[in-house]
Structures are given as C-alpha cells and as structure tokens.
C-alpha cells in the first residue's frame, strides 16, 4: 500500500513540476518528486542509491532555486486552486495504471555481488576518474561564468 501512495505522490508532483507556471512553485514540486523517488529507493532496500539521490537532489535543487529566482520575472501570480486541483486529479488519474497493473517483482535476493564490493573492487578506477571529470567540469563551469562576468 505504501508503494502505491508514494507512486501516486511521485506522479502528481511530476505533473505539478511540469505544468505550474511560476518557477519557484515548479521547482518545489520537483523537490517533492526527488524526495518521493529517494523514498522509493529506500523502501526497496537500495539505501546507498537513496542517500546519493537525496544528496544530488539537494544540490540540483539549490542551484535550480537560485537560477529560478534569478531568471523569473517578479510576478505575484499564485497558482489558482482550480488549476492545482485539476493537476492533482490528472496526476492521480495517470497513476492508476501503475497501481492497477501491479506485478510483484522477482525476488532473487542475494544472487549477485554486494553493492560495496561492486563499487570499490570492480569499479574503483571508474570512481577515481569520475572524480577527475567532476573537478574538470566544475572548473569549466566556473570559467564559463567568469568570462561572462568579465565581459559584462
């Protein structure tokens, strides 16, 4: 039952994120989407992925809030209750196939290797090089923004 409730919340918040006009409300709905996704991972015993998703979502949403605030024109238009209700209803409606066509997933738990083992023993070099890529991209983004600032 809890999976169905979270799935419905996930789809409703995804609908709100796309269809709400105001950037701040839209980003808030996207935050709910990320939170529900993280909760689904947690309930499905993917704890590390859930924590990572949560951390990534916090970072992405902080930047999105900042850029949403910067880019949006300052209008005081609050979303109308009617539109909100329609969006929530539409989200609930499209979550019906997810709930009705529920098929229990195969439970062959323990047949593979552990997550920690896979991450550090098999993909250790990937992690190190991914760190280098992340550093390079952070530097590149800083250079893009710095060039713009210097020209302005």
């Amino acid at each position: 039952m809890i999976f169905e409730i979270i799935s419905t919340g996930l789809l409703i918040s995804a609908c709100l994120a796309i269809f709400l006009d105001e950037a701040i409300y839209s980003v808030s709905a996207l935050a709910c989407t990320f939170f529900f996704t993280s909760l689904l991972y947690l309930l499905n015993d993917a704890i590390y992925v859930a924590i990572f998703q949560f951390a990534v979502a916090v970072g992405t949403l902080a930047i999105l809030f900042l850029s949403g605030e910067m880019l949006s024109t300052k209008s005081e238009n609050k979303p109308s209750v009617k539109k909100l209700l329609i969006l929530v209803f539409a989200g609930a409606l499209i979550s019906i196939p997810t709930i009705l066509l529920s098929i229990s997933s195969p439970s062959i738990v323990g047949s593979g290797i552990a997550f920690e083992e896979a991450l550090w023993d098999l993909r250790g070099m990937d992690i190190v090089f991914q760190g280098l890529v992340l550093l390079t991209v952070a530097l590149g983004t800083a250079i893009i923004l710095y060039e713009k600032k210097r020209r302005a």
Partner: protein
Amino acid sequence: MDFVILSLTMIAIGIYGLLTKRDLLKVFMSVELITTGATLNFVMLTSSLGKGLGEAFLILAFSTDTVISGVVLALLVIVCKKYGTSDINEILKTDQKEETL
C-alpha cells in the same frame, strides 16, 4: 509493484514537457524528470534482483547527471542574461532580428 509502468509514465510526462514547454527552465526540468524515470527503472530492477553492480553503475550515472545539470544551468544563466528572457521563441526571434541587422 510494476515499476516499469511507473518509470514509463514519468518518462512520458518528461517527454511531453520537453515537446510542449517553451521555457528553458521547464525544458531542463523535463530532462531531469526523464533521467529520474530512467534511473528509477534501473534501480528498482537491480535492487530487486540483488545485483550490486547495477547500483554501482547508477551511482556513476547520478554523478554524470549532476555534471550535466551544472553545465546546462550555467549556460542557461548566460543565455538568459544575454537575451533577457528564458523563452525559446523570443530568443529565436531576437537572434533572427540581430542576423537581419
């Protein structure tokens, strides 16, 4: 619970937003929804099968997704400051006007 249908629905919402919305921020959010739907599918399948390697790959995929988000948002801020709007149609119009001048 069939998570394939859930992730497919999320991807469908994202694709709809990508095709219909003209705001750059909304387009970016649609792409985020698509990637979230895709990773949801993979995480649920790998965790139910008990395969740690799938989750390890997905950690790397999350990092790449974050990197893409950072670069796209930086470019988005620059474009919006240059053209004064985040609407794709208006940006195209301004660009065409500049070309004709």
